[in-house]
């Protein structure tokens, strides 16, 4: 609080005043297209700020680092201990000594059931509850961020984190495999062989598949996050739901329920390693995840717009 308060105020005013005045009239006289452009521009600005906040946080990098450890551990263990007896261990494990590119895929098979949902559950569960626990939710809302806009931006940032998480596993896996094992043309499940380049494209498609797989769970996490001011609660609940859904998916007695479980197609990405690639499970998965996004997105919105922000 400097002594030349008034002069500082004037400079501040010059910067802020024109925008403030435009706002006042915007709703009435300005053309709708300009207003819409500003809404979109403002939302992009908020999205950029949200990504910056997410990726400037040490925890985010710790989560990605933990995911990166999975392919590294797999590769190093195989390098030291040699090949596993065939038919044991996760899928694709046996191929690694022949072709290091399979480290990324093996790591994805290992990470998808638990580690990936755990890390994404942390980010999704933190979206609103984390802001509430810091008290920053009230300041974002009186900025005003807009309740639905904030929710949308938070979800989009979580989706970006899903992509970052799956890419971390695939990219780190491919790199460490390249470093420790021989690399060559990729033999697919159907027996056909494709070039290294096409193999890498297939791996990126698998990363996209798994990213899409996580979008439904992210929506569930987002909704749970609007219910509480304790982020750990929302995080744990999201991860637990992912485990419970997979257990139910393993019970043949609940077969009628299986097509509706958001975890149903999680490991279906092997279809992308056929020649030609089979996209059916990708499409089914995308539709299912979209359904979860719609339902839990709507629940999150209805909760968010009626929520009394007391934190």
């Amino acid at each position: 609080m400097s002594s030349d308060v008034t002069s500082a105020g004037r400079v501040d005013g010059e910067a802020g005043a024109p925008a403030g005045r435009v706002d006042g009239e915007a709703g009435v006289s300005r053309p709708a297209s300009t207003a819409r452009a500003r809404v979109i521009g403002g939302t992009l600005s908020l999205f950029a700020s949200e990504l910056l906040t997410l990726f400037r946080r040490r925890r985010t990098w710790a989560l990605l680092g933990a995911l990166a450890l999975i392919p590294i551990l797999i590769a190093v263990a195989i390098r030291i201990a040699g090949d596993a007896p065939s038919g044991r261990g996760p899928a694709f494990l046996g191929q690694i000594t022949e072709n290091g590119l399979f480290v990324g895929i093996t790591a994805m098979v290992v990470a998808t059931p638990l580690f990936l949902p755990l890390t994404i559950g942390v980010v999704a569960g933190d979206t609103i509850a984390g802001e509430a626990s810091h008290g920053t939710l009230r300041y974002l809302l009186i900025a005003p961020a807009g309740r639905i806009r904030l929710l949308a931006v938070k979800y989009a940032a979580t989706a970006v984190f899903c992509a970052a998480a799956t890419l971390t596993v695939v990219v780190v896996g491919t790199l460490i495999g390249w470093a420790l094992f021989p690399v060559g043309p990729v033999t697919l499940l159907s027996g056909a062989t494709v070039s290294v380049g096409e193999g890498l494209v297939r791996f990126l498609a698998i990363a996209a598949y798994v990213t899409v797989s996580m979008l439904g769970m992210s929506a569930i996490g987002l909704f749970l996050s609007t219910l509480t001011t304790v982020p750990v609660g929302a995080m744990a609940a999201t991860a637990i739901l992912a485990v419970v859904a997979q257990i139910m998916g393993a019970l043949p007695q609940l077969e009628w329920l299986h097509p509706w479980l958001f975890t149903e197609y999680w490991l279906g990405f092997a279809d992308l390693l056929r020649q030609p690639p089979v996209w059916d499970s990708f499409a089914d998965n995308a539709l299912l995840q979209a359904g979860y996004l719609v339902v839990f997105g709507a629940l999150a919105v209805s909760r968010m717009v009626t929520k009394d922000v007391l934190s």
Partner: protein
Amino acid sequence: MTDGSPAGTGMAGDAAVGDATTISTAPATDLAIETYGLTKRFRSQVAVDGVDLAVPRGAVFGFLGPNGSGKTTTIRLLLGLVAASAGGARVLGADMPRHVDSVLPRVGALVEGPAFSPYLSGVANLRRFDAADRHAPHRTRSARVDEALDRVGLSHAGRKKVHAYSLGMKQRLGIANALLMRRELLVLDEPTNGLDPQGTREVRALIRSLADDGTTVFVSSHLLAEVEQVCSHVGVMSAGRLVAQGTLEEFRAAGEARVLVQTPDAAAARHVLARFGLDVDGDGGGAVVAAHFASTDVAPEAIVAALVADGVRVRGFEVERASLEQRFVELTGEGFDVVQ
């Protein structure tokens, strides 16, 4: 001095619709904040009970009340953070929370203490809140953030992570956040909380300078001396109700004054004071005679003259006006218990 009228609370469910039409047909008011029968219930408890606030534009409005009297809940209602159970509020002429998007960019606020992401620097936190306001121009963001930090004396600490900030520094950063844009209304909830004496003085100076620029300032506080120094208007909350509001002068005048005469001739002094029609306190047997000094048509100097004329040896004479604190205690009750 208004009292929360039962009529306001009576119009429960349809109040928002009914009142909105009534008010929009009325001539445009010069009130920055106006609430009618504003009520908030949490389950069985009534936190805010039929509050009718009227804060004129340009005023520095001191919003007083003991802990738990509903001040912060009222502020949350005004800012659209919680929804009213009954009644409604207009801020800068528009109904809240319906017009949150057009009203809030013109309002800066500090609500229930500052709050920031501890893992970000002060600058990054301010930039983040500024980015959340889609009306805040992107290209002036850095300049405005620097100005605001400079204004609260935090320029040197802007790059530090907020978790390394002291309470007072966080408080300053919170005020800086409210000042990121030029605002028509500032809502400051306990702005001097955690500040050192210099900081308190600076906040007072800041509030004055903002008010001089024409900004309406709505400041809640329990520090009465604070409010007495900067406010033009005062409102007092007690147990969820607005028990008094008006200009500071009206408020003080409503309190009672007392005449204190220090004299060895107590009985004679009593006699003189009674002759002026003053309500003399019971015989304390001491050297000070006290009397309620309600009517303003008696001049204190006339009393002194009469005392001296009657041979009373006046050693001291004082007219004691009610301080804001006394008036506050009269309205809200004594004791330490948080009002339920």
